[in-house]
Structure formats: C-alpha cells, structure tokens
C-alpha cells in the first residue's frame, strides 16, 4: 500500500466536526499550589480544516495539544472535554489512548532533536510507528518510510533512512518528524511549531506539503506557531492564547482584519514588517 | 611462681596414641617461611621440617624437658668429640634413604651443610657458620666448593672440625641447615624451596604457596631407623591464608573435616569461647619457651642511666601487659629474662610490685634520684600488629603513672626486625621477643646481651648492652665443657644482667590450641614455640 493511496474508509467527511474541545483546563501542581497553564479553552476542528493556535511563548499552546494526545508531562491533569469524532478522550485510560495515538491523532513535536531517539536510525523509528498501526512486513514499512522521507524533501532518502538523528540538521529532523506523522495518515494532525528551525524557503515547501496532504486525505490539522504570518497563510480558524487563556477565536480573516482583543491588536501591531519599514500604524498610536 | 602457672595437660597429650592412617589437616594463618631448611628459622617451620627432613640429631618428643632434650636421629648417638671438643664425629644409621630410595651417606650430610653456607640462602640457623672451622671467604658449595673442615672418611662417618671448643655441638647438628641432600641430584640454591627432597617420613606432593601444602608418605623412610617420629597419618594437608578468627571459629565448631584438624594457638578473643567442657577436652596448652621483653637502648641519653632503666622496670604494669596479650591463659608474667623451659632457669624478681601491677611511686623516686624529677620520655619501637600494640599501650599507660611519657614509633611488621636491628635506626626501646635455639642459656643470653655481638645491621643485642663484666662472664661460661655447669652459670648470669636492667622482661607467652575431636597424640612441644608436635600427632580413628 502506498502512502499516497488514501484509505477510503478513514476519510472523514469534509466539514464534519472532527475534534471538539470544551472548557479544557490543564493544571500542574507546583510548590506554590496548583497552576492552571491552560484555562477554559474551547475550540473545534473540522475535517480537512486547519486550526492555527498563536500566542506568546509559554501561553499554553503546547500543553493544549499534549492534553489532546493524553501525553501531558508528569503531574499534569486535564479537565473539561475533548471529543474526537464524538468520542470522549479525557475519560480514557492510557491503554485505550494508545489506540488513538498515532492512529487517529498524530503529532509533530516542537523540539525535533530531542524528540527522536538518538540510539536508533530514523528509518527504524518511522517504521516502528507505521507498523504499530498497519502491521505488515518490515520491507513494506521501509518502503513507506522512504517514500515519506522523499515527500518531505529529504534528498537521497533511501540512503538516509539508515542514518541516526544526530546526523541530520535541525531542519531535516523537523521534516523527519513530519514524515513520521504523514505515514500514519491520521485523522487529526497536530503540528507544534513544525517550521521554526527551517529556512524560509524550506518552510514554504513544507507548508505546501501539509496543505497537499490535507487536500488528499481530509486530515484535520492543528497548527501551532508564534509566527503570525505563517498562521495567516495556513489556518482556516485561529485561536489566540495568552497566559493560558484563550484571548480570541475566529476565522483567520476575522482575526487578522478585525481583531477584537487588545492583545491580538497589539500583537499584530508589533509585527515587524518586511514591506514597509515605516509602520503604517504609526500615526494611530 | 609465675612459671608454675603452666597447666599440665597430661602425659601423652590429648586422645591417647593415634592410629596409623588418614589425613591430618592443619589450618594455618601464614604459610611457612621456607621449605628450604637452610632458610627457614622459626619454631613453626622447624617443627614442620621434622616431617620431611632428618638431621644427625634432633629434639626429643614429649612435653616439657622431654621434648627439648637432644636425641640421635640419623646418627647412631650424640657424637663423640676430642678432648677440647673441637672435633666431633658422628656415625650414620643403616636403612636411611631419600625419597627416591637412594641411601643417605655422610657425603650427603656434608653437601647439605656446604650448600646451606651459600650466602644467598644462609639466612636460617647461623650456628654452622659460627662454630665450624670455615676459611675466610668461603661462600658455600656452589661458589667455593667442598669444605675441608667436614670430613667423610667413609659413607657412614662424618667428622666436623670446629673453630672453638663447643660442648653443645650435638644440639648444633640438630639445626635445620644440617639436613642432608643428595650431592648429585641437581639440587640448586633455590630448587629446595620449591621442591624439597625428603629424608623424613613424608614428601611434598603438592604445594601452592600461600594456599595449600600436601604431604604423602615417603615410602623409603623406615620406622625402624627412627626412634623419634610416630608418623601416624598417611598424609598431611595444610590450608594457609586463613584469618586467625576464622581458624578459631572453625576449630571451635569442629565440623566435618575440621574434626581431623589442628591449628596454631588461638587468639585472645577466642579464649572465652573455649571454656566449655566439650572444647576444654580438646584444648591443649604449653609455654612457647620464649620471652617477650622490652630492651632499652643503653646508648641513648637517659637510657644509659641504670637508674632510669630500673625505674622503668619498676613502673611497668605487667598484669596489664598480660591482659592485653590475652590474659592468664595466653601468658605468664616474666620476671627473668630466661624462660622456664631453658635448662638452668633460675627464678628471681629484682623489681617486685603488688600483683605485678607496677610500682609508680618507687619508680618516681628512682627517677628523681637519676635526675629526672619532672619525668622522662622515650620512644618505643613497636610492630604494627594488634598484640604488640596492645602490649605497648599497656606499657604506655602504666609508665604514664610514673611520669614517664612513651611515644610509639610504629614499624611495619615486615621491616620491624630490620629497623630495630639497625643500630642507627632503633630508638630508645622496643618490644620484641627471643626464643632459644635449643634449651640452653648459650642460645639465649649471649645473642641479646653480649657486647661483642653488637652489629650495625642485623643486630640482636637491641639493648646494646656492652658491660665488661657481663662480656667476661659470657666468655667464661662458653669455655666450660661441662654442659650442666654451664647451664647453672647461665641462670646466675641472668640475674647479674637484670641488675643492670637493660630490658624489662614482660611475658612468657603460651600457646593454647584447640584440636579436632578425632585428633590423638597432640601436645605442645616446648622446642617449637609450644606448637603441636607434628611427628607425634595423628588421628584417633582414621576411618572417621
């Protein structure tokens, strides 16, 4: 089975609600009492659509996505409701979540170097993920892997599969993480700052790749970044976060053309601009 | 009297006469120093040599004086000598063989002595070097060839020419360096230490230094030719390198093969554990036949004053020293230099105190008289071993009461004798011991108090006593050809020397041994530092 052949059974109906998050709160116990790093976040992702989450560093973007995966760091607890295709995820045990992870939801983690096991070749790590859900022979898995690597523009993929993570550059590692998620063909893909380590040129290619994937498989996507410009290009809906709170939510157009929250406006205003050094808003402030 | 404290453990030793056969096991802490009789020179190894070697004469068997008596072995008698005792003739018995079956001849005895004179190995008993008439520069058989002063007119006769009259020569030929070796069997200086050639009832079949030593019967030894050795077991097996406390525990437990085992003296710590009737039945005791004493370096300032030395003699709490050594079961208090096992022993106590606890007041008075009203201090050389440290600490404590400060100079066990035997390195005093090479004052007092025997290195007159009167008296006694007269004279000399107080006699230490329940014929041999006589011991029932 080739990666490009879509699995018809799992193609979600475009526009159907894939993920529904309501009143999500993530709490960590600290020496100074429990801290809510995500407070009362609610949003939904439709099949084939992309939700962009923006916000400053530490605003709880990663924690929100980890809560969906059921992979919060030790001590973290999530309350509220997370429904995938209508099924509640928060109530599930780790064992049950295991069937969701990788199969239904895949994630591209923020820090690509540390997210790959340095002791195994990248090929092995991707194969492992593929075979955990699709079974099949190692040979087939390997072919799928090479194909996925080629799709993320890793040159000489058939040779590179046998290399170890540290032998790749930061940008390549990030692409390897994306390749791993791609070959899983999930219903929902969560990409946590997947392009931060990339050159602007490669970034553009990857963004195109993700869009293509969505078109083909109808995958829903959560795209986390702090780069407003990037989010404006990929997202259908945008969620703005600050200090764990959800500041504003809306379609991309709404957020960028008619921002309501002070914070969103300030953020947009502070954006350095390549096209015009003399900020057009100067007069207004 | 302190010496008579020695308990009597019955005539023929424990468990009656052994039955021939079986394997006797020996648990031992340290390996034997040398299997080469030219090199080994201590009670333990001399005891062992009798199992594999024979000499012209040897010590007897039995407790007390019976054991230290010199009796014929390879020779038919104790030798005959010319008028001034400078020429001694011995005749060999018949039926005496080496382990390969070749008969032992007078030439083999001669070769044995010549070999032992090689400087590279002559570190054992020194008497051959001292009394034989050896030309200047003679360096043993390998370097200098045969020695003219030993003649072998025929295969059975051997004649020794001495450089001085020596009434006790029969005891000298009992010393290990007089062991015969086949002159033409490729024996070298070092070969014997690895692979001995047996002349006694056993031969070495397995030897791993520091671990095990196995003896099996020497088929060519004939019981008829030997009046001394019982040689009951078929084999002996030594285990070396065992911790002292472990040996004691094993002997006390006496399980399994340990029923057929013997070992050396128990440690002080184990004394309390062997008081049960069951173990007491398996316990034997005997004096080691040595004296533990503290020589004082009479050449050091302060110590050169006899009053100071006498004060120290008065102040030492010998009871505390005894306790530190393991109490009454392991030591008797010494007031004389010569131990009671030496012929001519005379008892006296020139520096008495209540319960031997020392008399600090009297000592203080003497010190004041000597010009040290504010006390005195000296450095004591001691050996890095727990027993000696305990003794030294007891001395330190008791002298402190008399205002005498003792500082220790702790010397590693291995170099202790080297240091105190080097006149330039020794300090004011030391704790050491001396054992006679045979039961005569001749091998006791001169080596440790004769002024002419002070050497720069390898010195045993640690007190460095060089008293003209003592020196003269030693020379006189030595010239006596009547052994009994000489013995009595040594006893008197002991008292004469102690008046000068060159040393503090501390203890006559004892050996206390627990043997396995199947052991028979074990007794403490006074000639071998109180060790169990190996040639008389055996198993009660070899089948067990």
């Amino acid at each position: 089975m080739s990666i490009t052949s879509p699995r018809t059974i799992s193609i979600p109906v475009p526009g159907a609600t894939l993920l529904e998050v309501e009143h999500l709160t993530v709490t960590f116990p600290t020496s100074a009492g429990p801290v809510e790093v995500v407070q009362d976040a609610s949003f939904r992702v439709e099949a084939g659509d992309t939700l962009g989450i923006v916000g400053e560093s530490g605003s709880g973007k990663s924690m929100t996505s980890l809560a969906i995966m059921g992979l919060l760091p030790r001590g973290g607890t999530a309350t509220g409701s997370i429904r995938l295709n209508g099924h509640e995820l928060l109530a599930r045990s780790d064992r049950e979540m295991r069937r969701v992870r990788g199969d239904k939801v895949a994630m591209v983690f923020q820090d690509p170097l540390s997210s790959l096991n340095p002791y195994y070749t990248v090929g092995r790590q991707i194969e492992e993920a593929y075979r955990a859900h699709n079974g099949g022979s190692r040979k087939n898995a390997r072919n799928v892997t090479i194909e996925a690597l080629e799709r993320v523009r890793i040159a000489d993929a058939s040779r590179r599969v046998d290399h170890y993570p540290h032998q790749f550059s930061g940008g390549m590692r990030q692409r390897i993480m994306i390749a791993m998620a791609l070959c899983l063909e999930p219903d929902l893909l969560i990409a946590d700052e997947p392009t931060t380590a990339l050159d602007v040129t490669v970034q553009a290619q990857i963004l195109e790749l993700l869009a293509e994937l969505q078109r083909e498989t109808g995958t829903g996507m959560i795209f986390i970044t702090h780069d407003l410009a990037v989010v404006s290009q990929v997202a259908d809906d945008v969620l703005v976060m600050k200090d764990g709170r959800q500041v504003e939510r809306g379609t991309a157009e709404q957020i960028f053309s008619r921002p309501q929250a002070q914070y969103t406006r300030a953020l947009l205003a502070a954006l350095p601009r390549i096209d015009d050094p003399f900020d057009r808003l100067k007069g207004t402030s | 009297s302190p010496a008579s404290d020695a308990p009597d453990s019955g005539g023929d030793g424990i468990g009656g006469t052994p039955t021939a056969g079986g394997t006797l096991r020996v648990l031992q802490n340290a390996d034997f120093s040398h299997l080469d009789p030219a090199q080994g020179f201590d009670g333990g190894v001399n005891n062992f040599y009798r199992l594999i070697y024979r000499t012209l004469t040897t010590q007897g068997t039995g407790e007390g004086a019976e054991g230290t008596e010199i009796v014929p072995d390879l020779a038919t008698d104790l030798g005959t000598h010319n008028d001034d005792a400078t020429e001694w003739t011995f005749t060999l018995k018949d039926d005496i063989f080496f382990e390969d079956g070749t008969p032992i001849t007078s030439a083999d005895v001669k070769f044995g002595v010549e070999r032992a004179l090689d400087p590279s190995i002559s570190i054992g008993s020194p008497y051959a070097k001292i009394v034989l008439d050896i030309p200047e520069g003679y360096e043993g058989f390998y370097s200098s060839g045969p020695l003219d002063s030993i003649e072998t007119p025929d295969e059975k006769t051997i004649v020794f020419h001495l450089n001085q009259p020596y009434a006790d020569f029969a005891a000298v030929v009992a010393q290990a360096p007089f062991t015969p070796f086949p002159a033409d069997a490729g024996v070298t200086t070092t070969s014997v230490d690895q692979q001995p050639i047996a002349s006694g009832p056993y031969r070495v079949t397995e030897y791993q230094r520091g671990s095990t030593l196995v003896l099996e019967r020497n088929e060519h030894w004939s019981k008829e030719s030997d009046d001394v050795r019982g040689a009951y077991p078929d084999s002996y097996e030594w285990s070396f390198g065992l911790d002292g406390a472990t040996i004691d525990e094993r002997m006390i437990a006496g399980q399994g093969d340990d029923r057929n085992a013997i070992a050396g003296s128990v440690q002080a710590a184990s004394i309390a554990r062997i008081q049960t009737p069951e173990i007491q039945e398996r316990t034997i005791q005997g004096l080691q036949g040595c004296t533990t004493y503290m020589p004082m370096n009479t050449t050091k300032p302060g110590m050169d004053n006899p009053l100071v030395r006498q004060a120290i003699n008065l102040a030492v709490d010998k009871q505390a020293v005894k306790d530190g050594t393991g109490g009454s079961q392991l030591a008797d208090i010494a007031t004389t230099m010569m131990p009671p096992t030496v012929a001519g022993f005379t008892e006296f106590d020139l520096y008495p105190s209540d319960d031997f606890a020392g008399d600090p007041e009297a000592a203080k008075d003497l010190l004041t008289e000597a010009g040290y009203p504010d006390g005195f201090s000296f450095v004591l050389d001691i050996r890095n071993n727990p027993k000696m440290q305990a003794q030294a600490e007891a001395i330190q404590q008791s002298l402190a009461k008399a205002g005498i400060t003792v500082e220790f100079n702790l010397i590693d066990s291995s170099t202790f004798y080297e240091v105190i035997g080097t006149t330039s390195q020794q300090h004011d005093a030391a704790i050491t011991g001396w054992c006679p090479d045979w039961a005569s004052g001749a091998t006791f007092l001169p080596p440790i108090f004769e002024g002419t025997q002070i050497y720069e290195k390898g010195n045993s007159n640690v007190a460095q006593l060089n008293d003209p009167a003592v020196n003269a008296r030693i020379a006189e006694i030595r010239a006596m050809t009547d052994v009994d007269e000489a013995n009595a004279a040594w006893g008197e000399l002991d008292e004469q020397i102690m008046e000068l107080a060159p040393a503090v006699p501390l203890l006559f230490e004892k050996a206390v041994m627990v043997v396995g329940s199947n052991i028979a014929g074990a007794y403490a041999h006074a000639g071998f530092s109180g060790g169990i006589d190996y040639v008389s011991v055996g198993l009660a029932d070899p089948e067990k």
Partner: protein
Amino acid sequence: MTESILSAKHVSKVFVTRGDGAVFAGTTRFTAVDDVSFEVPRGKTLGIVGESGSGKSTTARIVAKLIDPTEGTLEFEGDDVTKPSGRALAAFRSNVQVVFQDPFSSLNPRHTVEKIISAPLDYQGITPKQGKRALVRELLERVGLNADHAQRYPGQFSGGQAQRIGIARALAVSPKLVICDEAVSALDVSVQARVINLLNELQAELGLSYVFIAHDLAVVRQIADTVAVMSKGRIVEQGDRDAIFGHPQHEYTKTLLAAVPQINPEWELERVRMLAAEGAVE
C-alpha cells in the same frame, strides 16, 4: 556624515577542527567567513542578514575582537586594530561593546544586575565620576528599567528586561560602536519591538553606531541604514536598506525575500481601516 567608524577589509576566518585531542586524527578546515569587506558609518547602523550558519556571528565576533581573523584587516576610527597591543585592545574594548543574542545566557546568573552592569568598568579599571552605583542607576533608568532593581539577579527579569540589562552593560563604558548579534531574535514580537525602539532612541541621542545582526529580514529592515546579505560565508550583496529590500539584485537575496510569509494585505488594510475608525470614534 559618511565617515566610517569601523571598516573591515577582506576579512576571512578559517576554523581548523581537530578530532577530540587525537594523536593521529586528521584536521578539517572550514571557512566560516570568506573575504568579507564592509564599513560601518559613524552614527549609523549596518544590518547583516543571512541564513543560519552563513557566518554572521563569526563576523560579529571578529569585529568585536573576540576571535582573530585568519586574513584581512580591521580598522577602528582609522586605526588598524587587526592585531592590537594590550593597551590598544583595552581602548578598543571601551569603544566597542557587544549585545548578545540570548539575554539570559549572556548575563551571569550569579551576579546582581549592578555587578553585571559595572563589570566592564571593573575589568577596564574605569571609575566613573559620579560613582559606580549612581552610574548603574542612571543606565538602568536610561534603558527603561526601575533603578531599584539593581540588587536583583537576572533570573528575576523577563526576557525583554534582561536584554535591556545587556544593553545597559554595553553602554556602561560609553562605547561608540555596539555590536548586536541577534540581540532581539529570542524575544517575543512585542518585546522585540520595544528593544528595537530603545536602540533607535539611543542612537539618536548618543550618536552610537551599530552592527545589527539578525536572520529576520523584517527586523533588519526596521533598524538598519545599510544592509549586508551573507550566504555561505560571503557577502553576496550589500548596500542601502531600501535598495536591498526594494530592488534586490542578487538571486539569493531575491529568494530570501520572496519566501518570507506575509499576512494577506487585504486583511491588513481592513484592519488599519477598522482601527482608524475606532480611533476616530474615540
């Protein structure tokens, strides 16, 4: 005023790396900076842009005299400082200061802010007229921080505040040239803007010159007067800011500029209008 305060001529840097202390390990040579020449006009800002690994930091470190160039010469105010004497180096240090990329890692976490800011004075044996303490307070206020924070430790500040402490330290010895190596890259867009603002103010006030390094083209566009574009150790294009951004000549500069993601200009316009309308209402 086009007189240049600093000029670099044909500067190259070759790194020779050896395998871990090995006896026979071969060495590899890597040219990080290759024949680079540029000038920094007095009172102006030279921006250096380029992808990661293109040699920007190495150039900065050469210019700050933290490493020696393999080839080429450096002139500061007309004096050759390629191989300065001890005294000349000390003088150079008091005229040229560096603001580092990561605000926290460039501040010793075990030192108080006061100690950090006054360190260059101590190191150079300078005693300010008004006293060290007063100078530190003055500098803190100048960079917009509370002067009472002098006894705090870097860990007690936010990234933007910490970066300003770094700037205050650079200003302590009254330098003429400040080298900013990715001085704002680690900061949030909002804080970034504030720091840039501060740098601009200081330039206007004190006539400082900057070498401003960044990989973010937009940031450079905001602050630089002239821009140099680096790629693979070389300067592929340099010139006036507007010329570079408006009419890039070199292929590399063009792809770089083209790939920068941008927000839909329609939306932008709409927003500007909306905000303007709101402002009118207020």
